[in-house]
């Protein structure tokens, strides 16, 4: 078979779009890009404002923990003697957010499972309304509630944790001071992220393909076995995604943490001790009385939080992409 076959050149496949299509495409594209542009502008703003501080503080900005603005007689900031270090704040942010996720996510996932697979219709409706309402609740109210109501009870729980789990380093207490600890702030944040994690988990659980659920039941599965083998693998990616949104919220939350947490300029790994840090709360705390140069330092802190959130979210995305494959 030495006959040579003539292979034609590939044709270009085109369609002439209609005007209405073009217009709609433009509207959708600009809508889609706008959030990206806004985020980019904020980033540029923070970078240009904060760059000077990062340059003058050098590595200390990330590794140091002191925050004091020394004002010269002329009314400007003495860049030599002022210290702007956010290490304690970054660590504190991660600690509070982690506590929030550790406490909030299991509660959210269990609620989502209850709402999707167990709750009678009437309770389901009511609970969804209440949980959605929780998401719309002003964060200052969570802060006040955390300060006045939760704080005292949480202190008692903290003492119990210290008593029985004190051998674990993070539960040790260098001083007998339990008030306004990262632990309390973490619980408040946990309550604040429950709505978003619950509603995303619930959404994904309710999309579990009916034919797989039926297949499991038809094989003699109990409801628990069905959840474990069918619903959970399916929903895992979505739960991780919801958790990341919750984590983002927990890391960026300002007022509630500011109200509850005792901000101390020293890295503290003891979660039960009443001393913590939080970048966003630092900005709120200092912004009112800050001079122009300190405001720039606060912008730099904001930039650091921005980047930290970005890193955490990208890491999360990578995890989601890896874990969600099997379930689909």
């Amino acid at each position, binding site marked *: 078979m030495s006959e040579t076959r003539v292979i034609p050149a590939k044709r270009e496949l085109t369609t002439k779009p209609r005007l209405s299509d073009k217009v709609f495409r433009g509207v959708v594209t600009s809508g889609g890009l706008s959030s990206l542009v806004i985020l980019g502008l904020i980033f540029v703003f923070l970078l240009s404002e904060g760059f000077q501080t990062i340059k003058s503080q050098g590595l200390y900005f990330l590794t140091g923990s002191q925050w004091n603005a020394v004002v010269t007689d002329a009314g400007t900031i003495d860049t030599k003697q002022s210290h702007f270090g956010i290490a304690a704040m970054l660590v504190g942010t991660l600690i509070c957010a982690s506590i929030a996720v550790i406490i909030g996510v299991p509660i959210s996932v269990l609620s989502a499972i209850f709402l999707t697979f167990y709750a009678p219709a009437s309770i389901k409706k009511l609970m969804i309304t209440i949980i959605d309402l929780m998401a719309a609740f002003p964060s200052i109210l969570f802060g006040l509630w955390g300060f006045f109501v939760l704080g005292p009870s949480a202190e008692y729980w903290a003492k119990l944790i210290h008593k029985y789990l004190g051998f674990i380093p993070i539960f040790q207490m260098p001083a007998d001071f339990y008030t306004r600890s990262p632990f309390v702030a973490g619980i408040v944040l946990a309550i604040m992220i429950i709505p978003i994690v619950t509603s995303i988990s619930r959404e994904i659980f309710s999309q579990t*393909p009916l*034919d*797989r659920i*039926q*297949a*499991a*039941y*038809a*094989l*003699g*599965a*109990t409801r628990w*076995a*069905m959840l474990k*083998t*069918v619903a959970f*693998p*399916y929903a895992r990616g979505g739960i991780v995604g919801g958790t990341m949104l919750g984590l983002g919220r927990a890391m960026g939350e300002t007022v509630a943490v500011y109200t509850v947490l005792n901000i101390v300029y020293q890295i503290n790994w003891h979660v039960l001790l009443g001393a913590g840090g939080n970048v966003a709360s630092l900005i709120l705390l200092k912004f009112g009385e800050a001079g122009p140069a300190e405001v720039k330092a606060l912008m730099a802190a904001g930039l650091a939080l921005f980047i930290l959130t970005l890193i955490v979210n990208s890491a999360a995305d990578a995890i989601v992409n890896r874990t969600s494959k*099997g*379930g*689909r």
Partner: protein
Amino acid sequence: MADDINNPDSGNTGKKNEEDMSTSSLAAVAAGRQSHAPATQALGVGLEARGVHAWFGDKHVLNNISLDFWPGTVTALIGPSGCGKSTFIRTLNRMHEFIPTAALAGEVLLNGEDVYAAGVDVTKIRLKVGMVFQKPNPFPSMTIAENVLAGLKLAQLKVENKDDLLEECLERAGLWKEVKDRLGTYGGSLSGGQQQRLCIARSLAVRPQVLLMDEPCSALDPGSTLKIEETIQHLSSSVTVIIVTHNMQQAARVSDYTAFFLSDGGPGEMVEVGPTSEIFSRPKDKRTENYVTGRFG
């Protein structure tokens, strides 16, 4: 009819796409298959429906169905859409109550015992009465092997030699030869027909006494349909098969008994049941005759 045979294995599978088959040719198909029904009637009681009614909310969808399924036979349920065939087989393994508003009256006896009796563990019933669905539904996150053995995990059953069971079930489902070298790949990588046979293998792994099939071939191409039908033929010696089908040729090819369901706008009723060859050659009821001759439906 012998001229139409294109599959020497089963010896009774007619040519596909013969939408306008006459009653007589269907009857010939039905008569041509070697029914082992009479020989196996002595095996035991099997599955019996006694005066089964079903509702969804206030809607009465199934009216007073009484039907016996003999061990080792294949029973086909035929009838136009919406006549309650699927609802009926879902009452047999208690998948009916899966729908929130579903209600039921009557009894379903498995080996003489009512599956709806108080204190009956519904998961045990579903182990004995397996089910294959219209759309192939393997678990996509599991490999082929894991899919077959999924029932053991779901129902927490213990088996001594899983490899033997795996091979046996895939063999019985007619899939072993095609997948034996790739048991570790995901179930979703198979073709539609292979997926459906995988689902059959999965149902067999928990050793059901009865296998319900709800239009198992309606989403498949003719070649895959043929394979499933062969599988059903092989299975019927060890499992009682109840198959819902819209395809009358299929009913004629695979079943020993055929029940004709019909709804005149009200709840679905069973018009007639009998040996498949009789339903297709000399139905007692005029409505059955109209349906099997293709005059409506």
